[in-house]
């Protein structure tokens, strides 16, 4: 038991030190809500039945969605569904289609950026 405890020490330190990322971004350049993934920004634009995720760099400049794979979990009106995300026209954004209303929908996206492991990101709920 003690051995395990000692072994966990070096890994527990960063876990403790990390604090919740709670600062809120303003609206994104496409009018959606912005979340942070690593050193990148992601902007979520929700319409009824359609979900778009724009990739932005730190200065909120658009980045191509080339080679990005992922899915999104949605919670809308008490129902949960998973959407597969595909690159939109011109690789400008990732898009997924489903049956949901935009209002009050909570979204968590799991994305694999080129050369990075899969990461999940939660978007703040649009007012």
């Amino acid at each position, binding site marked *: 038991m003690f051995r395990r405890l000692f072994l966990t020490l070096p890994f527990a330190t960063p876990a403790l030190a990390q604090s919740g990322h709670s600062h809120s971004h303003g609206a994104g350049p496409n009018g959606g809500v912005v979340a942070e993934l690593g050193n990148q920004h992601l902007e979520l634009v929700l319409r009824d039945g359609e979900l778009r995720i724009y990739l932005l760099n730190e200065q909120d400049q658009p980045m191509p969605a080339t080679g990005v794979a992922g899915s999104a979990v949605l*919670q809308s009106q008490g129902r949960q569904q998973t959407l597969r995300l595909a690159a939109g026209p011109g690789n400008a954004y990732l898009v997924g289609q489903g049956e949901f209303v935009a209002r009050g929908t909570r979204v968590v996206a799991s994305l694999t950026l080129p050369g990075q492991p899969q990461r999940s990101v939660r978007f703040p709920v649009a007012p």
Partner: protein
Amino acid sequence: MRRFLPLALIACLLALPVRAHEGHDDEAPVASNALPRLQAESELFELVGVLQPGGLMLLYLDRWADNAPADGAITVTIEGQEVAAERLGVGLFSLRHPRLARPGSIDLIFSVSAGEEMDLLTGTLEAPAPAEHAEEAHGWLDALREAPVLLIGGLALLLGGLALGRLSAPRPLPPMVEDEAPRKAAPLAVGLLMLLAASPALAQTGVAEPPRRMEDGTVFLPKPSQRLLAIRTQATATAEAFATLQMPGGIVPDPNASGRVQPSQTGRLEGGERGLPTLGQRVERGQVLAYVTPSYTAAERGTLTQNAAELDAQIAILQARATRLLSLRGSVSEREIQEAQAELAGARQRRAAIQPALSGREALVAPVSGSVSVVRAALGQLVDNQMAVFEIVDPARLWVEALAFERTSLDNIAGASATLPDGRALELEFTGRGLARRQQAVPLNFRVIAPPADVDVGSPVVVLLRVRRNLSGIILPADAVVRSAEGPPVVFEHTSAERFAPRPVRVQPLDGARVVVTEGVNPGARIVVQGAGLIAQVR
């Protein structure tokens, strides 16, 4: 003693791997024994997952704003697989997945439903890599393998030592001299303890992590401890409040609902129909509490008796005359008969008037309804007309008298409250203030709205006067503010799921139970409103 030799050798061998790890203490001196964990939060919930040794994860689900455990259900998505977390208690779940036992960074998506509310959360778990464990084990094994001479030599020495010890062992003595039982019991107990320590079942019930103060002054309080101490928070918002003024004061009875019972003359005390009233007894207005029999000097009593005797004689004469005149009706004038009868009635009235002074007694009557609060009476006691025999107070009607040492802003009083010595708050209504100074202060009177039944007249109180001068700040319960070890008052902000940061604040009392924080806390912060004193104790 020599029998211990092989045992000691085995113990040394067993201790070897443990000792080899002690060097790691230097590498991570701050986090003494925290387990790997993840945090996830949204506007509604706060979730902490603690990875227990053995790949089991305990999930603690709380409301984001007030830190109260949230009951519900959690489904976790691990690498595209949905796993339902098992509910262990209110806001406590356990999650089992083979992926959790493997090292590396992993993102989990939590689908939370608590009552009507649903939410999605995500968090990253940095699972520990057991690589170092393997490396360590290889470390000394490899060393032995690289030097087979050492291994062989060591084993030969060990065997030689064992054989030597066996040969030179003393012959067993009779049991009277040396008892074998404890020797056998000791290694058995050691073995049992080691088994217990190594047992994975024990490890899975949750490793206790002590709360502690970090180097930056914040307090690390694990979720189990937060549950135990019932830590509750409040999301703060700026509000307007009236500025307050503190004054010393005391509880006094309402002058219209309290009274003293005093006799009007010197006399001897007698009980009423039900004896003397007792302390705390409820009496009604007009109720007879006691009697006072007047006491006279010998001269006074002589004069009275003489008057009575004279009157008695006069009545007898007048009675006889009236009777005689009445029997001669017709021969005497009617006017004479009436005069005789009037004189007789007058004499009887005078006699009746001095009768109480001779044998009568004065009734002591309660002037108001209320409770008897002072009794200075004993049967047969001589009382004079200066003495308050009983005092009566209506406990439902109490006032507070306070002394205001600064006259400023006494003219725009918005309201007032008082704090009793035990911390309870009383709401007050301002009734008036005196114009004459007393002890260099202006006396103020307040009516207590709905006084508690157990408040005593004369209790000291602290009166908080709200004046019409607006103060902008964050209103918190008084319990949220604790005094730090350095002196200034602090509140604890819930900065992340298991971290509490002390924030020095400037506070003003608002009423007995609430304070206004005017400086030191930003609106929107989560401030501990219950259990702050316990967090302050963490060292």
